[in-house]
């Protein structure tokens, strides 16, 4: 039990709350889970709440970019919120903010995606 992911759907947004450590090992499980949820074609956007993500390495970048492609094909957005300083540095190094948007909290992030 190294990574827990809580998935909920708010209107057309897939909300993903990650708890624990995201590395190559846990990325494999997460990818499967997210792809399952993204089979639901009503989902247009994805919101990643990283508040309880204690660790992430470059495997996390890969798994997020992979799902971004699906969302982008639906002309949706990927929004990240509650990111830690360390994870933010990795996001910046990888140029992630060219394709995804950063918000402070889950509430405000959802609002920008049209969920009240």
């Amino acid at each position, binding site marked *: 039990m*190294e990574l827990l992911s809580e998935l909920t759907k708010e209107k057309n947004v897939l909300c993903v709350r990650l708890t624990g*450590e995201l*590395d*190559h*090992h846990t*990325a*494999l499980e997460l*990818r499967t889970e997210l792809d399952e949820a993204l089979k639901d074609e009503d989902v247009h956007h994805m919101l990643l709440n990283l508040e309880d993500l204690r*660790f992430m*390495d*470059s*495997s996390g*970048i*890969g*798994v997020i*970019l*992979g799902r971004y492609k699906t969302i982008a094909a639906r002309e949706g957005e990927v929004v990240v919120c509650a990111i830690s*300083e*360390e994870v933010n*540095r*990795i996001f910046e*190094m*990888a140029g992630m903010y060219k394709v995804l948007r950063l918000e402070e909290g889950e509430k405000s992030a959802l609002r920008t995606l049209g969920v009240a």
Partner: protein
Amino acid sequence: MKNEMELSIAALSQNESFARSTVAAFVSQIDPTMEELTELKTVVSEAVTNAIIHGYDENPNGRIFIQTSIEEDVVTLTITDQGKGIPNIQTAMEPLYTSKPELERSGMGFTIMENFMDEVSIQSTETTGTTVFLKKWLTKSTLPSN
């Protein structure tokens, strides 16, 4: 006082977290900051993952060797595999370059190592394997706990 340990693990993905927390536990002896500890964990994770995915093509019979030494405020890491080696180190180190896009690798492993450590050097021979040397000077270090 200098202290040193060597860890050898099977090339299994569940050992990635074991490897990085073991290095962190060892380095904790010289009181790194939480930020430095996270950086060290991240680079160990990158190098061990590379050995598993690239060095051994996920063959669990491979072994990975992680040497850690601490002396005053300097941490030295050496991560070695006896896998297939890197044909072109220059190319491999370029940000975003990956030879395994099909596995959703981001090509950011070496870039993260270079950002989080003060020295990175790679030695690799095709068919005999790869060694990554990493060195970091801790900033807020105190005297070694002995």
